[in-house]
């Protein structure tokens, strides 16, 4: 299996994502260039974190028009797995690959800190190895992470099991104190209806090595291995 990581101008977690796949799940990983129309035959696409186009106008707004995004949309439509991390999540929402949008944090500041997530759905390509209700610790680092959608959409997402991660406290409760950015219903990550496209604000690729304090991000990438076996 082959994983592609897109580099947009301003991406800055692309290298981290490539290393995550190569060093921690031992799969082939290739960089994908935003100006290309070539997915190089990858099975999975990672939209990495960073500040594509400087986050000017709106985070992710300009990146979604990059040539490679046409191919990624087609790949997603075919049922190909895509994960958007942080800025990648913002891009995926802007591109309509995922519902909702990410607005400025409610406190108007950038936030860099570890958060606790509760796994809400294991029915996605990226969480099938996780157990429902499991608590995962990983860092966030963003200024525009307030997940928003209208109430009807939110209800639908909850109903269809498309809420994948929620910000919770150490005991697993989605309190407002545990919500680092004002996301509606403490939503940290969502998926498309089929569970093949997932977006989340926290950084699983920064939680893979005991030396860095947490290995809880591994489960997302390990879930991909099931694809190889299938």
């Amino acid at each position, binding site marked *: 299996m082959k994983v592609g990581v897109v580099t947009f*101008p*301003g991406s*800055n*977690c692309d*290298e*981290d994502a490539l*290393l*995550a796949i190569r060093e921690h799940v031992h799969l082939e990983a290739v960089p994908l260039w935003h100006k290309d129309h070539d997915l190089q035959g990858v099975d999975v696409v990672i939209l990495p*974190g*960073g*500040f594509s*186009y*400087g*986050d*000017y*106008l*709106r*985070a992710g707004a300009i990146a979604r028009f990059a040539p490679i995004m046409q191919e990624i949309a087609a790949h997603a439509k075919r049922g190909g797995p895509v994960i958007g991390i942080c800025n990648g999540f913002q891009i995926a929402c802007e591109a309509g690959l995922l519902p909702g949008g990410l607005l*400025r944090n409610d406190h*108007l*500041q*950038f*936030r*860099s*800190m570890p958060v606790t997530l509760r796994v809400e759905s294991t029915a996605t390509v990226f969480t099938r190895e996780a157990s429902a209700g499991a608590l995962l610790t990983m*860092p966030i*680092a963003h*200024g*525009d992470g307030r997940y928003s959608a209208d109430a009807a959409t939110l209800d639908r997402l909850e109903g269809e099991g498309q809420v994948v991660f929620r910000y919770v406290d*150490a005991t697993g409760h989605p309190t407002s104190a545990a919500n680092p950015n004002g996301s509606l219903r403490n939503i940290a990550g969502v998926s498309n209806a089929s569970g093949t496209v997932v977006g989340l604000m926290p*950084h699983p*690729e*920064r939680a*893979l*090595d005991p*030396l*860095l304090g947490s290995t809880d991000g591994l489960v997302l990438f390990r879930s991909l291995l099931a694809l190889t076996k299938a």
Partner: protein
Amino acid sequence: MTAQRTPPSASHGVRPRPGDPTITPALVAEHGLTMDEYGRLERMLERTPTFTELGIISALWSEHCSYKHSRPVLKTLPTQAPWVLQGPGENAGVISIGDGLAIAFKIESHNHPSAVEPYQGAATGVGGILRDVFTMGARPIAMLNSLRFGSLETPRVRYLVAGVVKGIGDYGNCVGIPTVAGDVMFDPAYEGNPLVNAMCVGLLREEELIRAKAEGVGNSIIAVGARTGRDGIHGASFASEDLSEENEAKRPRVQVGDPFTEKLLLEASLELIRSGHIVAIQDMGAAGLTSSSAEMAERGDVGVTIDTTKVPVRETGMTPYEILLSESQERMLVVATRGHEAEVQAILAKWDLVAEVIGEVIAEPVYRVTEGDRIVAEFPGTRLVTDCPQYHPEARESEEAIARRTRDVAAIAPKGEEADPAWTLERLLQSPTIASKHWIHRQYDSTVRTGTVSGPGAGDAAVIRIRGTTKAIAVKTDCNGRYVYLDPRVGGRIAVAEAARNVACTGATPRAITNCLNFGNPKKPEVFFQFREAVYGMGDACRALETPVTGGNVSLYNENPQGAVYPTPTIGMVGVLDDAAHATRMTFTTPGDAIVLLGENTDELGGSEYLSWVHGVVAGAPPHCDLDRERALIGTILEAIRAGQVRSAHDCSEGGLAVAIAESCMGDRARPTGARLDLTAWGALPLRALLFGEAQGRIVVSTAHAEAVLAIAQRHGVPARVIGQVTAADQGLTIAAAQGRCTSTIDRLATAYHEAIPRAMARAAAETVTETAGGTR
């Protein structure tokens, strides 16, 4: 004006540009040149300079570029060690860390721009120091920041803090470099003239090291990156003046940073350096095109010629003067091998950036600027930057500093509340200088690049692993300006010693420093005294600790209407851990562990945060700094950590032993512990000196193997003693001393320490909207 002047047209073909002002004494003065300096310029040219030439020299001979007041003193600093690959004089210093790898690092100030526009001033400071590091061929892997502000009680200071922190964060976060450490102090001495120093650390393979040295006659000079606008013209000379009201009008237009372009420039530059198509690269920083081209020519001892009409500009009608002196951000100057210009342009185009050939390296030893066919400036020789005047200003210690230092601070009566030392401890923990800086660094992405083993607030220094090896580096900035003010020589020593101690507490061997010398107006004898003595003190410590100086930055004229800021020679220290797994943090982890104090408690209250914060007194001699003992202490902690005998290590700094212990208990708010201490062994010491005095050379260690740690200390000749035990958090903190007892709950201490700055800054949120029109971040 001197008598025998030839009109510019008579020789060299240099003609005044139509429309440019004529040179008058007033114009010369406006450019910050003395008449003596102007005379030197005329003698150098053997004629009257043109307006463009006056502008060039005014920038190059500013303190910022020429070090005309500081160079002789700086020359006394040690700069060599077997591991130093590049000492002062380049864009950044470089040390080897083995395995063919090297670390490039440098610190720089952006004080004046930040005083005027905190957000953009701080942001562009980060941008500039990043470029200094990646132009060495290094990929930036960590950023640090050292900040000094006035009292957090004033709204203007809160506005500055909010803007500076957001500016640093937004820029570094966007480029994707983790900001991992720093230091912050608050004191009225910095009111009106904050210090904003940014440090960048990069990683390179030794063979990829590139220098900013123009070479090869016929090679092309290429401007790369952003277009040139009318930003910050004369920033360099401006940085060399007092920030007084008369200068307010001269305020240059602020420079606006674009971290997005910087990120592209970073990738393009590293690709360019690796491509082999270029021989030199330098950031267009202060004094922009002028200083970058003149410095590259001087290093290569070659001539250059530049055509300003070839420079890509953002605005119409820009004059050569403006183009040469613009400080537009995110620009580079590159010398490309002749015939490889197209390859250079192709690499830049890949990253959506422009590259234009604007000049050439020439055999003729001149620095020449043309505007199309017209020569608008021409200087003989290649030593424009160092052919500047040198000054040896008078140095005299101020009476006030002497009076303050010699004051008997033991005579200051304790306040009534101090009868309970817990009151004093909680109060000190609320001092913004001591309190947790979490409000600041939670706005900095500290985990991007997946290398941060120990980030801001976790240890005495940050630890960054080096991929592909077992190694890590530790980095930290430090300087207590109050000590330097009270005794510059001792203060200079302590700045280096504390930085080294912080790095050693994580398990890293201190290796080298960069420094940012923030002082007042050097023409004042008392300021020059501070400068000279502080540099001597730094030199003493660098020699003793074998941490040579690989570069730095001088920022003078840091004054406000009340006078100079505290002399603040900020030290940026880099250390190396052979095994990243040894990285040690500052907080206690395990109830039952013994607490060992390495070093000795003394009766020294002078210059302490206690006197300043609790009594409003800045006086007394700062603590002694015995460099041999510091060296032995560092040897001890390193050996103990490497032997696996240390669970946590934290040095005693502002607030003394009691604060260090409290921080070790609740610095990590999510995982607090308690502690029970017995300090009765120091029965002769006054209680407040024992608890809050800032004696140097002390480290608080927690360990499961106290005997082993004591034995190591003994071998190094370092006093060491078990002073207590780590307990569960609900046991609180108790310190028993001969002259009193200090007890408090961990919750109270944690609240004091963690909530002081957020509480103050919540007021700022209601006072200021630091949003800028452009920013979406």
